[in-house]
């Protein structure tokens, strides 16, 4: 079942479409770098201690810390 999930809870290889972001939680720079609502992101891999997380955004790689990934909600595509 697809559903709303926190980006931080996805496993490597899983992806989803970013839902509306709450501005108080998310820095504008993230959006300026192309992580906008409606954009599909995939978890590429995690750092050895599980944090930060490397995302695939539109064909390039962006690393974010876990606390930020916990505040990004995605529509998970997992079956």
């Amino acid at each position, binding site marked *: 079942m697809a559903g709303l999930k926190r980006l931080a809870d996805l496993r490597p290889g899983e992806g989803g479409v970013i839902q509306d972001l709450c*501005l108080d939680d998310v*820095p504008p720079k*993230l959006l300026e770098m192309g992580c906008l609502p409606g954009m599909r992101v995939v978890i590429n*891999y995690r750092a050895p201690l599980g944090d*930060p997380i490397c995302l695939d955004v539109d064909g*390039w790689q962006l690393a974010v810390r876990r606390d930020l990934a916990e505040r990004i909600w995605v529509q998970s595509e997992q079956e």
Partner: protein
Amino acid sequence: MSTSKRALRIALVGNPNTGKSSVFNRLTGLNQKVSNYPGITVDKRSGLAKLADHALAEVIDLPGTYSLHPNGQDERVVYEALVNPSEADRPDVVIGIADGTNLKRHLYLFTQVLDLGWPAVLVVTMHDEMRLRGQSVDFEELGKALGGVEVIPVNGRTGVGLERVKEAILRAQQLPVSARFFQPQKKGAAWLDEAVSLSKSRTAYGAWLWATEPTDLGEKAWVESKGGSPDRLRVDETVQRYSALHHLLKPLQRVDPGKDLTRSARIDRVLTHPVWGGMMLLVVLFVLFQAVFFWAEGPMNAIDRYFSGLGAWAEGALPSGAFTELVANGIVPGVAGVLMFLPQIALLFFFIALLEESGYMARVVFMLDRVLRPFGLSGKSVVPMVSANACAIPAIMAARNIENPRERLLTILVTPFMTCSARLPVYTVLIALVIPKVAFGPFDARALVLFALYAVGFLTALGASALVKRFIPTGTTAPFLLELPRYRLPLVRNLWNTVFEKSRSFVAEAGKIIVAISILLWFLANYGPLTQGEMEALDPAQRLEQSYIGRIGHAIEPAIRPLGYDWKVGIALLSSFAAREVFVGTMATIYAVGTDDLGTVREHMAREINPETGEPFFNLAVGVSLMLFYAFAMQCLSTFAVVKKETGGWKWPILQMVGMTAFAYLVSFLAYQILA
């Protein structure tokens, strides 16, 4: 052609990791200079490019940024240069650099530039990578869609396409760009007209940027007084601009779906793997240290020998007198003290540049971020901490890359605990003096002590950061957003430019201070309150004792006696403020005077007898106490000066110097009292 009297001025604007510096290096060759932007410490790279016969242009390489809304000091430079330029820095043409594999994100910044009304040329890099990925774009149509901008694919490695860029620059001024990709009128109708007149902007978008820019900490943006939220407005712009770009690019881009886009990600699954990635990191660090310590040894010794020879030659060749003395024993050793470190610093920066250019450094930052965070540091503290093994000065300057002000400050404050190469000669002499040459299994006791000193420096840096972070308010939290660029083969030209530039700035910045202090110390050691005649009547050892520095040494002796030191060591401690390795030279001077033989410093020091005990003065307790003092005390005025410059005030460098030196005193005191 431009008929203005001054040369055309061109600004390069682009995201980080776009090949912007390759284009800059290609355009300017070695005609580059690095200066500081007034009032701040961000490097300003500029150079001269020959566009055509009789057409020279000044090219300014602006720091890489993702947006004109600044997120830090570096990016603020871009904002100032394009939104708010003083007449003296106003560019005539902007060259936007965009990575062809990520056009949308790169055009985000470029269309901001166009919205400000700048005549511009767009350079698209990485089209070889685009081909690999099966991506293609109609550049001519893209230029039309961008309102008539010339779009030119350039290969930063071969320089193909660069001639076309030069021609396009000369034409660009005649092509006024009128396309607008974001309409601030819709979102800011209530206040935009007022913002235009208040900000004296030439364009509506300039006024929008001015109004929504959250000026420095604490000060509220103007737009808030009008009921707007700068962040909200910034996001409105982002959404609208990306949507415009999406529609603009959709008909022009073609992607072959059969191609593999994930080569870097696959490499990364190995290189950032908990086991393989960690091992790879250790190997890389090992090679780096091996190079910095062993490859640099030969050139360092050669420089040392050359300058000793030069000093001796000057003493013999110039007419004897105070001036010759100053040259031979003040200036020449001072210059040598600076140049000695050049091989290490050049090698270290070569390796750091290699790691950065190849893209691996971003992975090191990525892997270590979580490890360093509990100490209040960031993954981005790695570069300064590695650099500090050569010298704290370039290391502290490298902390500029850390966006979070708190993490940056902590990095600056604890970096001097790392074992810089100036401590190495001190350790070498003292270890040879007090540590017996015994082996524990395969490990040599002396090597173990040296290793322990390095480990202690690093662990103390971490511990100090964890402690100090409690006293520094969290403040604004700048987000940790790190692009992991594609792996690329580094370009020799870029590596060379970086190494040359860093070395030059080290010699210029640290050199000034070290040479000045060496001269001052020479004066203090050769003159005293006595008259010149009285001084000359004394033998050299007494003369030193009667000099200003000898008097100061005596004056501080009561304070350092609990650590096991006498006034002679006190002189060495004080003179080490020029640079720590001056310790060795000072010791050589102090203990050589009065003896005729040409033994080594170590032999002279070993012969020194403690008058109270009749035993050798440099015993284990004194030696260990001294080594620990050198490990922890901030005895480097050059570092002090750099910290003051980078933190913008006296507060942090003073606290740092007092804190580190007090800690060193305490540890050395305990070590001496326990061992003695």
